[in-house]
């Protein structure tokens, strides 16, 4: 029995989770660990800090927190949208070619940057974003049909494009020298460490706009739960809805990938967990997924930052290392329920 107040408590839990992991990320780290740090802006709580420590908290940790919250929310939200669109609990934002495209372009710049005169992480980010959009566009055109995007073909096209991207990546790996190879593998494991106030605004705009747009489409997306046909009978313009979904997911996830590299599992697992907790109704699933996604990503970022300090692990390793076993646990618990509704 899913009463409203039961679902509401997960919203509260998600919010608390965000507060808790934000607190963790802000207050601990190799330079300075003090649980009172997040309170420093409140009068009377200020702890004496050196210039360096202040810089670290405001210029390093704070933008990293903002990025983590945003990326976590966007990835989880996009996962929710994709899973509902594809009516498949295994759908992931990367499925429509975003991750393959972003990877090929970004890694091409890393591997061949010297030759083509494009060196530096800004070009890598730009390439990742363009790559994500381009491949999404190609996959979208492939899957276009009379009633808009044919979801089955969308998935297959995405798989094909990702496979093609994989072979291109192999080629790039062959031509890359050792330096580039290392960088390429780091990029593919994702990291939030590069966050800075200069870099954030564009990403915030991209991800923010996409997130708001998807959030406003909650109601129509919900009707997709009954199937595309029934959604049409209920009055939804499914052609336009599917197109919008894909565009916003591409923009949001493309923006995220451009800033952080590839972070896997979040878009797949968080919506799953949220669905088990609050059900498939998007009106609840989306906000809860977003809250959980933000909280979990910041938490894993904290783990990535702390576990091998003063070095850092790429965050993708943690999301996979924690995500996969947890996912298996969920599978075992929920075997009979996984296919319901799709």
């Amino acid at each position, binding site marked *: *029995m*899913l*009463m409203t107040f039961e679902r509401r408590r997960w919203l509260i839990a998600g919010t608390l989770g965000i507060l808790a992991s934000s607190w963790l990320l802000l207050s601990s780290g190799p330079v300075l660990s003090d649980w009172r740090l997040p309170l420093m802006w409140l009068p009377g709580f200020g702890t004496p800090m050196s210039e360096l420590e202040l810089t670290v908290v405001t210029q390093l940790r704070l933008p990293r927190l903002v990025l983590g919250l945003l990326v976590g929310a966007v990835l989880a939200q996009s996962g929710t949208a994709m899973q509902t669109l594809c009516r498949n609990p295994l759908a992931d934002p990367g499925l429509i070619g975003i991750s393959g495209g972003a990877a090929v372009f970004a890694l091409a710049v890393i591997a061949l940057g010297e030759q083509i005169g494009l060196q530096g992480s800004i070009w890598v980010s730009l390439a990742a974003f363009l790559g994500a959009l381009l491949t999404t566009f190609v996959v979208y055109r492939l899957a276009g049909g009379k009633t808009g995007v044919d979801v089955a073909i969308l998935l297959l096209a995405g798989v094909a494009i990702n496979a093609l991207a994989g072979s291109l990546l192999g080629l790039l790996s062959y031509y890359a020298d050792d330096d580039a190879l290392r960088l390429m593998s780091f990029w593919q494991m994702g990291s939030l460490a590069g966050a800075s106030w200069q870099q954030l605004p564009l990403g915030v705009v991209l991800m923010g706009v996409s997130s708001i747009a998807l959030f406003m489409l909650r*109601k*129509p997306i*919900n*009707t997709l*739960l*009954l*199937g595309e*046909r*029934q959604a*049409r*009978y*209920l*009055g*939804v*313009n*499914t052609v336009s809805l599917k197109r919008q979904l894909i565009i916003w997911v591409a923009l949001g996830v493309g923006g995220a990938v451009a800033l952080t590299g590839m972070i896997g599992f979040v878009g797949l697992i968080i919506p799953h967990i949220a*669905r088990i907790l*609050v*059900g*498939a*109704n998007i009106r609840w*699933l989306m906000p809860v997924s977003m809250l959980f996604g933000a909280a979990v990503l910041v938490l894993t970022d904290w783990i990535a930052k702390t576990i091998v300090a003063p070095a850092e692990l790429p965050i993708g390793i943690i999301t996979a290392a924690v995500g996969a076993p947890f996912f298996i646990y969920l599978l075992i618990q929920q075997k009979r*329920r996984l296919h*319901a*509704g*799709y």
Partner: protein
Amino acid sequence: MLDIKITHVNYSHKRLLGAFDLSLEAGEFVAVIGENGAGKSTLLNTLAGELDYHGSIQLNGRELTSWIPAQLAPVRAVMEQKLSAPFGLTVAELVGMGRFWSHEPDYAAHQRALNWLERLDAAKFAERTMDTLSGGEQQRAHIARCLCQLDVTVPGEQMLLLDEPTSALDVYHQHSVLAELRRFTQQGNLVVAVMHDLNLASLYADNILLLADGELKHFAKPEAVFRTEILEQTYRSPVYISEHPSIRKPMIFTEPRHL
């Protein structure tokens, strides 16, 4: 209200339906019957806009293909044969989804949903999730959803398309659902329902539409269609027709087959 003048309906080079020249009026309850594969669901799908047709289908004076989904939603509701039960969706939420086209606030939609669940004797599981319901209960929920969708202040000139709406219901609920559908037609609306239970069709339908091999064979009142020669040819089984003890409607009896 619904004028069907089509020559044929094709799908990937196969002819599914032949020529139809049919006019259905507001206030009518039409039961579509026929053998399996006769084209009943195909007809319904065509009226639902899923299949291309050659010819003309006019709903309330406008060609069906010229309506956009948002315009059709307050006027036409469809209940398919295969029903989905998304995980974690409560019954009230499912029924409330029918109000999508109205853009009314959630509490209003929720209220309407509860009203219709009450009418279909399903209010007691309003807060349960769909996947915990039995087949019959899910069916009633979906019918409630369709009726909720078409719930307007000034009823009339609306169409309900149903594919076997009573297949999983017990006797009590079969009658309560069909009675509710009759009430719907009495408000000036059209119901087109594919039915397998000939006796229920006889009791509730104004007209019977009999299909065979994608062709329209008969369209008339139950008394005219439920005749031995017609039914035996359609269903290739011996039938006996008799009048209902208290209502002047034909009742159909079949007999067990001996191998």
